[in-house]
């Protein structure tokens, strides 16, 4: 791994509209071998999955060793992978088109043993899996699947595009949330907070919102893309602008769900996008395929 650049001083420029959030370290973490995109951190922040610009292939970089290992060369493998809760495995989907239909399968790759197994055969409407204690859960079609050993009462949320709903599963039953009723046709980037008590999502027409598990709107945080939980009180996201043709600016921000403050973590012209957060770190990519890591200090 190449630690190409440490931009410690960017902390000055990148912080900080409030006194309680500061960037303590801003480091380029682009792996050797060229451009990388769509980074995803493991729960303990020690590993980072990344892919190519069109999601072909999936690799995992271990920050402690600086080595990358190939998980898959398949098309679509890099789209929204999920680490297991202990970081030893990664769940990813492979994409194929059969008879004009887009199908996805789900695989588990054990990073320690370098072994792989297919959990779900190619199927339509395979949601993003959720890592839960002991394994993973995923909704495919109208069914919830769990891996062997996964604890049955773990929560899992996903959004349904065409019906404008968010589904909360607890292993036994599912509840459908419609926080804005008919006002919102769809929800994007729906995720559960690490403590399993809140949902962050992008309500189309409303922006990033935080909900409780009953669908009550706790906070409307503004128009940002790709929200991702940073702990249980903050949401990392990207603030983008475009000219109707291309993105003209994109910066990584941290949204405080309590007071709705927006903390700018990077400069708009840095074009940071696709944030992923875990263990006090945020990783993101730029259009040129550079990956950066932010480490924050938050005091209250």
């Amino acid at each position, binding site marked *: 791994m190449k630690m190409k650049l440490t931009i410690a001083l960017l902390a000055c420029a990148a912080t900080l509209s409030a006194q309680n959030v500061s960037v303590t370290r801003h480091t380029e973490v682009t792996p050797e071998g060229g451009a990388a995109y769509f980074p995803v951190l493991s729960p303990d922040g020690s590993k980072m999955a990344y892919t190519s610009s*069109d*999601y072909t292939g999936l690799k995992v970089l271990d920050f402690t060793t600086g080595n990358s290992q190939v998980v898959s060369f398949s098309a*679509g493998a890099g*789209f*929204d992978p999920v680490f297991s809760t202990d970081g030893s495995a990664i769940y990813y989907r492979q994409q194929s*088109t059969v008879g*004009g*239909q*887009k199908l996805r399968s789900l695989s588990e790759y054990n990073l320690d043993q370098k072994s792989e197994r297919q959990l779900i055969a190619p199927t*339509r*409407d395979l949601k993003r899996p959720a890592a839960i204690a002991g394994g993973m859960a995923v909704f495919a079609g109208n069914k919830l699947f769990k891996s062997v050993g996964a604890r049955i009462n773990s929560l899992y949320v996903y959004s349904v*595009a*065409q019906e404008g709903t968010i589904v909360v599963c607890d292993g036994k039953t599912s509840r459908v949330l419609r926080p804005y009723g008919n006002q919102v*046709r*769809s929800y*994007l980037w729906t995720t559960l907070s690490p403590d399993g008590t809140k949902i962050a999502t*992008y309500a*189309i*027409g409303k922006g990033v919102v935080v909900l409780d598990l009953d669908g009550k709107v706790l906070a409307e945080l503004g*128009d940002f*893309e790709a929200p991702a939980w940073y702990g249980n009180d903050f949401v990392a996201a990207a603030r*983008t*602008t*475009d*000219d*109707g*043709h*291309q*993105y*003209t600016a994109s910066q990584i921000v941290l949204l405080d769900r309590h007071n709705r403050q927006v903390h700018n973590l990077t400069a708009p012209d840095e074009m940071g*996008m696709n944030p992923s957060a875990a263990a006090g770190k945020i990783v993101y990519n730029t*259009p040129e395929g550079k990956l950066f890591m932010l480490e924050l200090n938050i005091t209250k």
Partner: protein
Amino acid sequence: MKKVILIGALSLLCGAGANATINIAGVAKQVDTLECRSVGPGVQYVRMHMPEYPLDVYTLTIDLNNPYNDVNTFIGKDHAGTTEAMTQAYTRLSTPGHRTIGSVNGNFWIVSGQGMDDLLGQPHSGCMVNGEFATEPNNWNRANRGEGIERLQEIAFVMLDEEKKMWIDDIYFEARVTNAANESFAIAEINRIRNENEIVLYNHFTGETESYIDGVDVIVEPVEGETWGSNKEVKCVVTRIVPGTGGTQLEGAEYALSGAGTGADFLNKLQVGDQVTISTSIKTRTDSLVPMARQMLTGNALVMREGQLTPRNENETYNSQTYSRTGIGMSQDGKTLYLIVIDYKSSTSVGCNTATMCYILKQAGAWNVANMDAGGSAQMMLRGSLVNNPADGKERPVSNGFMIFTNAPDDENLTHLAFDHYNLEIPAYACFEPTILGYNQYGVLVDTQVADYTLSCDPSLGTVSDDGKRFYAAPQATTGILHVTSGNATGEIKVTVKATEIAMKNSAVLADKAHPYPIEVISTIGENTYTYDPASLTWSIDDPTVCQIEGGVLTGLQNGQTRITGSIGDFSGSMDVTVEIPQSPRIPADDFTGWTTKAISAITDATVTPAGNGAGTLAFTYKSGRQPYVEMDKSVTLYSIPDTIRLLIHSEIPLSKIQIACKANGDKEQYLEYEGLETNSDYLIAIPSVQITGENNRGGFPITLNYIKFYINTSGTTSGQAYKIDLKEFSLVYNGVVSGIEAIAGDRNLTLYPNPVTDGSFCLEGEAIAPGSLVRIYDRNGALVLEQTIDRPSTIDAGSLTPDVYIVAVQTPHGNFVNKIVVQ
């Protein structure tokens, strides 16, 4: 010490306040002092305006008693015969411990048409630099005008002597060379052309001898310890002898005595190793005084002597005509030097005769005055920039002039501050952010814009911003002292607060949501415009649904027009506001209807037709002609406040250039030109609107585009062939308008669903969709990943798109829609 230096330099010119006058031939003429500042140790710069002429007058007054200033003649690139811009000489001549401050031009110089083309660029008459003559004082402009004493006071020689004392008077000059046998021969000229029966002296100011006739060059060097100067005899030793027709190169300290005819006969008696004496003598014609000159310039006329204007103001047209002026004056004791430049041919200065110039200098304290080269040469330079507006409209290199130096040690520590403002009158309530000048202990201006300073004043005069940088004038008329500190350095200025009407800088502005506008409220006193903190005004809006004002910042709410009024104290001002809010980050600028065309007569059938979706086509039949062009004309007012204007052009015919005529509101038309177009390929022109309006100029909107002119490159064209130039895009980009990730609601006549796209396709429905609607999908980097024309509500196959966020732009006859979609 520092205070003595600074205050001692103040001149009478600086005393001219807003209502001061100068006595011009017995008539009091109003003079307004616009700038007055110390620019160096004992060096005072003043800029004045005399509105009754009008005249713009610039003066430098140098207190020669100050030990930290110095005045030298400079000569263009240190060469007699080369001109140089004074702004370049400023840099070239500045050395540690001898830093340049400013300059004025000096002698007339030889130009073509004067019959001396071999001496082009050489100063007329005398020029001396640090004791060495570059050119000899002569009688070239002496016409023996007048009678008696007038003939003794015709030409003005401007000299600074060894005691740093000025002399301005008419002089006799003589130079001779004397050999060991005490035989002597007159030196006819210095650094000119050697003619028959002459001896001409050459030195490093030309670096070589010059002649067309046979003769001899005797090269000499001063004996150790000898120094050059006027009224001195300098012993030299012959080092080499070169017979011939000149062209002998001189090196280092070498001088050449170059003779022809009888001059050569005299020199041919010399041998290498012989000693000769070269003497130069200067004597004033009227009083037979002997200046020990170290510096010399020559003007065409001695226009004032002993405080009296001379007949030279009237007996030479150059002096009596209305013209630009450069003059050099001196006080009676010779210890104050006055440099003056007066503009001509500018909108604020018509020029004057030398008599008017003399009266101005006389009021300042001048005793004798020389008239120097004027016209486009009349220039004054300070700190590397011209301060006046030369008649040429640009800087003219000059042959020579006076350069002011400071010889104080380099020292960046500030000990004294001054406001770079004079006669400071500020409107009540107005905000004033001063320019602070910083001086060191020697009076050297080392910082023309001190950044770290703090203002303070008595509360009755006004208040100071929290950061100490701005002064807010009291609500009522008053006077007082404004203080400034920076470290241990201090300064102050007298301030007069006046009750003055306020006004909006713009009588009408455009507003939108994305460009908040801090309302520009101003007041004007004289040539100074002051601003107000818009937050300090009370604002009212006729129609508050159209716009809002928070903290003096205007933002549009919805399309419409209204009028806003700001009030402070007893004053108020109003402004019309038109709000235009773009609904999309990019909209077509025009539909390409109603355009007319122009072309050379050989080009026929030129028409502009809409191509739909904000595109258009210019079609014509080409035939060769002289400088062929075809032009499309329409006054297109660009909507709202675009950040960029985009034109995507695709031409079948070779183009050498595209010219776009456009104008900012209230400004004159400007022409933007673009080259490097390739035939049959897209050429994108992206014009930042600030390029047309200038920075921070809200009043410059709306922008109007008047024509697009295509210059045809004749090579590669076929006469009689029909050609097309497609304007594939003529759009306006609004940076602040963000494409949201939202399905377009039904009331917008277009619906996009589902979002996210999970099954490889999405639907576009709604009344807005009509035949020919164009759907474009771009990735985040702007790459066009999908383009499809639809005639009715349709399903768009996005199966080829990898999961990501995309921008969907839909152009329909009813409008343009931009949204983002997420493909999963």
